[in-house]
């Protein structure tokens, strides 16, 4: 009989610990949602090397060259995706926007994820008063409509990237904490924790050495899905003018400005919209794939 202890502790690393053969490895790789990974790799590359590969300064206003068409509609290679109403190069702005989305997304997920994990471990493992307090606080944060609060905070302290990131971390840590707390509660009752206690392990050792590795899987799944959600929220806030402030180019801001030119110069809306769609879709696909691979319920 497989003891649950063996299967969970052994899976410290992501994925089932099957024997490694070249054939198994190739099969595993082929199951990856390839284009998802491709998109995300491109995104990361663009994010890292943005300023280098950007053909123009995203904020350079050149009114004389306003509303140039993209390359497929008779434009030139100088501005491959055309220019916006102020003559700024769309491609460069897209790249700049990508960097922002990436930066904000990762920062928020990292921050909120860390806080959420720590609190979930504390609340789930120690229970009692700590759990009561953390749970209540989580509930408060989850009940409050996050957009309203985000807007209110940004409205109060002013719009900037750091403010935005902190605000979003502030509003999203509770989601992680709640989900991971249930996981911790479930894991706490498994054999291997009791064994560790009987063996005299200290609380911190149990937390760090035994519980944390088993939390990594649901955390990864959650983080991936939240990354997409964060990018959407950032775009929404920027669209409302309450995210990253101008003149910084973000996809949301591009959409906000471009919406006045629908019909006349629709690609101003098309490109940033497509960018958001493609990136979030890729992230969600990856998240789904991760969930299929890592969720113990689905594992064969």
């Amino acid at each position, binding site marked *: 009989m497989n003891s649950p202890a063996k299967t969970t502790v052994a899976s410290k690393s992501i994925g089932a610990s099957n024997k490694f053969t070249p054939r198994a490895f190739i099969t595993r790789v082929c199951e990856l949602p390839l284009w998802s990974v491709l998109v995300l790799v491109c995104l990361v590359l663009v994010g890292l090397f943005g300023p280098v590969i950007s053909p123009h300064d995203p904020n350079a206003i050149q009114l004389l060259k306003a509303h140039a068409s993209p390359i497929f509609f008779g434009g030139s290679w100088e501005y491959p995706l055309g220019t916006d109403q102020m003559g700024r190069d769309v491609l460069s702005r897209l790249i700049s926007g990508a960097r922002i989305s990436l930066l904000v997304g990762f920062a928020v997920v990292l921050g909120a994820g860390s806080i959420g994990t720590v609190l979930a471990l504390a609340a789930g493992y120690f229970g009692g008063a700590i759990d009561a307090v953390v749970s*209540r606080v989580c509930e408060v944060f989850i009940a409050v409509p996050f957009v*309203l609060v985000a807007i209110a905070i940004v409205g109060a302290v002013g719009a900037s990237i750091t403010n935005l990131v902190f605000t979003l971390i502030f509003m999203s840590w509770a989601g992680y904490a709640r989900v991971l707390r249930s996981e911790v509660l479930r894991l706490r009752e498994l054999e291997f924790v009791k064994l560790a206690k009987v063996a005299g392990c200290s609380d911190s050792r149990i937390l760090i050495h035994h519980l944390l590795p088993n939390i990594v899987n649901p955390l990864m799944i959650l983080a991936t899905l939240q990354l997409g959600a964060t990018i959407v929220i950032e775009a929404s806030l920027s669209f409302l003018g309450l995210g990253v402030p101008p003149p910084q180019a973000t996809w949301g801001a591009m959409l906000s400005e471009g919406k006045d030119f629908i019909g006349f110069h629709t690609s101003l809306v098309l490109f940033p919209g497509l960018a958001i769609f493609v990136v979030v879709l890729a992230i969600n696909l990856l998240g789904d794939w991760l969930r299929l691979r890592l969720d113990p319920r689905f594992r064969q």
Partner: protein
Amino acid sequence: MTRYLASRLLQAITTIVGISLIVFALAHMSGDATALLIPPEATDTDRLALRQQLGLDKTIADQYLLFLKGAFTLDFGNSFRFGKPALEVYTDRFGATLALGLVAAVLASVIGILIGVYGAVKAGKLFDQATKLIALMGQAIPSFLIGIVMIAVFAVMFRWLPTSGNRSWESFIMPSIALAWFSLASLARLSRSSMNDVLSTDYIKLARLKGLPENKVIWKHAFRNAALPIVTMFSLQIVYFVSGSVIVENVFSWPGIGQLSIQAIQARDYPLVQAIVFISSTGIVLLNLVVDILYGFIDPRISR
């Protein structure tokens, strides 16, 4: 069962108190409210008088207690901008948001759940693949984007639907779709996976072994069980609808609370901001409570 209800009620109350703290802190985070309400030439005495009048001269703790007391009686003071009680301003606009929210909720629930259930029933076939695709795409398009796209296509290009306002029933179509979009996709995915889980259980196998007709197996036996996690998910959807309406109302110039909130924040209208966030959050908590109670009734493992 009563223990379940009592504990939920207690949780709700503590949550509301917590909300009041946040709301209060929120409104007072920004700079001096009086700065926007008084001409720059005003003297310091004038400023002081205004502060006194607005109650801003008391200590933070006193201000909070005052606020709390007022909040529980729904008295948030007068809106700086409108001069009327903040509650009145809120209720004036509430109807529009509620109407939109309800239409969107019904849309998202009915279509989302039906799609999800049939996707699971026809697992693997074309309908299922299409469902999965729709759900995936739905969650990748932000509500403001779908709003813009719809406006572009239906209002600008074809001129079928109005771009803003809520004068006619046609004006409900686009905003409610934009608001329902994400929720529909989430509900479809959840319904599908929940239904899938249920369809592979032993008791469904036994229902088939008893020779029951397939639609009884699906609806009477399977869906009744699959609905449980879906009901739980409604709580999340409610929060999403409130947040989403802020954005959708902005895109479609819908005269509701969402639009109001942005204006209020930009104008540093404390009382109104507090009123909006507090009432909305409390509303969410109470709605969640209702959902929890409902769940307690439909799952016999809790009610007995």
